[in-house]
């Protein structure tokens, strides 16, 4: 009996080990291709209950990823809003202090009782050593959220906010602008009407117009590089995928993308208004920044009148003081007083 048990257990462990090793072993030999379907297959899929349920599951897992990313941002610390009784005792909620716009949120109280709120003595002390507990509200390195966002958008490509946030973390925190660009290009392909993703790509191109090499993906094979070089000028839908080769071209593309972004943002804002809704903080920020970077792109291209017009338009639709500052800078440039933008 013991022999059988030991043998079976060892076999199972061996199977588990092999199961874990298989993906590693075959990774280099697997080619991933886009699937193509006949119209009849797509029609059949639309009516399939099983596929519909699987789709629901996929969305639920994507949502779980988003929730998990929040848990991971707080390093496993669970929080809740204070109860009325706790507020009476002076334990209040507050706004998060050290988060980027878009990740801003209200901070509550630790789910695991802090020492000054605890009535459980030794048991409470033990729990603080067993659970993920830290005094106050902590945030982990946002770089750790990147794989979560990458996975979540693979499961639900319509989560447009995750493309912009993921690209922001990739470019600014992980110093991987090429991957950031790749993520934004995928984001636009999946969300062609999104102003947020388009604006983020425009801004990325502008910011890296002096360092275009950084936007080149080293992991791309040579075929892709040749393809990029073969493209002469970006046209229509190809704008997003085209990798510029000079600063002027990058600024031109940034301007095109940002122009489209502000137009779409305005359309979206008006549609929101008709439904008595408002942009959230992140959308507002993207909106005025799009005008700001549009103006800056025009300045780099020497198109000062258009730069000034972008500031005026921005001030009208997305009021922000930085647009006023940019307006003054552009005016001085026109008058030949200064040669640098803010």
């Amino acid at each position, binding site marked *: 009996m013991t022999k059988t048990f030991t043998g079976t257990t060892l076999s199972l462990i061996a199977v588990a080990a092999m199961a874990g090793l298989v993906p590693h072993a075959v990774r280099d030999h697997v080619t991933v291709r886009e699937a193509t379907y006949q119209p009849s297959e797509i029609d059949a899929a639309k009516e399939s209950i099983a596929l519909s349920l699987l789709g629901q599951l996929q969305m639920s897992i994507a949502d779980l990823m988003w929730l998990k990313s929040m848990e991971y941002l707080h390093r496993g610390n669970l929080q809740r809003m204070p109860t009325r*009784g706790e507020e009476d005792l002076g334990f209040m909620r507050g706004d998060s202090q050290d988060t980027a716009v878009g990740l801003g949120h209200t901070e509550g109280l630790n789910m695991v009782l802090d020492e000054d709120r605890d009535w459980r003595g030794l048991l409470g002390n033990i729990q603080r050593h067993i659970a993920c507990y830290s005094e106050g509200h902590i945030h982990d390195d946002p770089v750790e959220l990147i794989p979560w966002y990458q996975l979540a958008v693979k499961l639900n490509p319509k989560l447009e906010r995750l493309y912009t946030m993921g690209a922001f973390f990739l470019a600014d925190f992980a110093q991987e602008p090429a991957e950031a660009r790749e993520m934004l290009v995928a984001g636009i392909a999946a969300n062609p009407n999104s102003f947020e993703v388009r604006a983020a790509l425009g801004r990325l191109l502008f910011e890296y117009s002096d360092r275009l090499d950084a936007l080149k993906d080293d992991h791309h094979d040579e075929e892709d590089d040749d393809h990029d070089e073969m493209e002469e000028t970006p046209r229509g839908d190809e704008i997003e995928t085209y990798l510029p080769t000079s600063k002027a071209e990058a600024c031109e593309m940034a301007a095109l993308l940002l122009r489209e972004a502000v137009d779409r943002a305005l359309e979206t804002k008006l549609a929101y208004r008709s439904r008595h809704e408002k942009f959230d903080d992140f959308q507002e920020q993207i909106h005025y920044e799009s005008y700001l970077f549009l103006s800056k792109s025009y300045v780099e291209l020497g198109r000062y009148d258009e730069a000034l017009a972008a500031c005026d338009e921005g001030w009208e639709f997305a009021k922000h003081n930085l647009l006023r500052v940019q307006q003054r800078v552009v005016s001085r440039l026109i008058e030949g007083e200064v040669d640098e933008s803010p």
Partner: protein
Amino acid sequence: MEKVLGIAQVTIIESFRRKDPYVVLILAALIVFGAGLFSRFGTEGLGKFVKDVGFTVTGLLAVLICVVTAARQLPNEIQNRTLYPLLAKPVSRLQVFLGKYLGVGVMASAVVLLFSAELYLLFRILDIPVSGVFFQSVYLRMLSMWIIAGMTLSLSVYLTQGGNVTVSMLLALAMQTFANTLITVRTDLEGWGVWVVDTLYWLLPHLELFDLTKREVHNFPAAPLWVLAALTVYAAVYSLLFMAVGMQRFRSLNL
């Protein structure tokens, strides 16, 4: 003691004869395979998630196998009338109960160890770093199995098998939620309400205290030794309490 060990051995053999641990281990192997597939997504840095999923699933399956095994020991023996020839031998009801408890406890601990070995292997294969907290969490998880075994075995002389499995699973898996709810509700209560919540809080076995896995996932430092010692005492006290209550009832049961 020999008789207790003999009954425990039979309990373990019977459990493996029913192939429950094998089924669970195969399921876990499939999950290991599933977790391994994450590398196919091409996204680096999902180590935390693989750890999280691995710990959650193996924890759930370990509790499941412990509860199901403990819940059927006495009811099945009574229903199949195999308990009567056993009690006709010079074996007391106390020895039967203790033997069953020991058998389930050892079997559940072995399952936790096997799961942990599987997880450790997976983490090594996927280059996911493992700290000392991992081993502390294995120890605490094994301790919690002894409480769950005692609790379920005791409840098996009070409840039907189905009811016992439901209640035990809820207590074992949702204790974190129950405890958090009690703590939160208490903040808005006064007078007798506080007393009721306090009584409930202190009576319920806090199995959430035996889960160190989140600390391993989020790279927290290891728990101090005094905490492990205190939890060992806590597990012993609760196991003894459950056993005492269960044995008392089993002794007076009209078979």
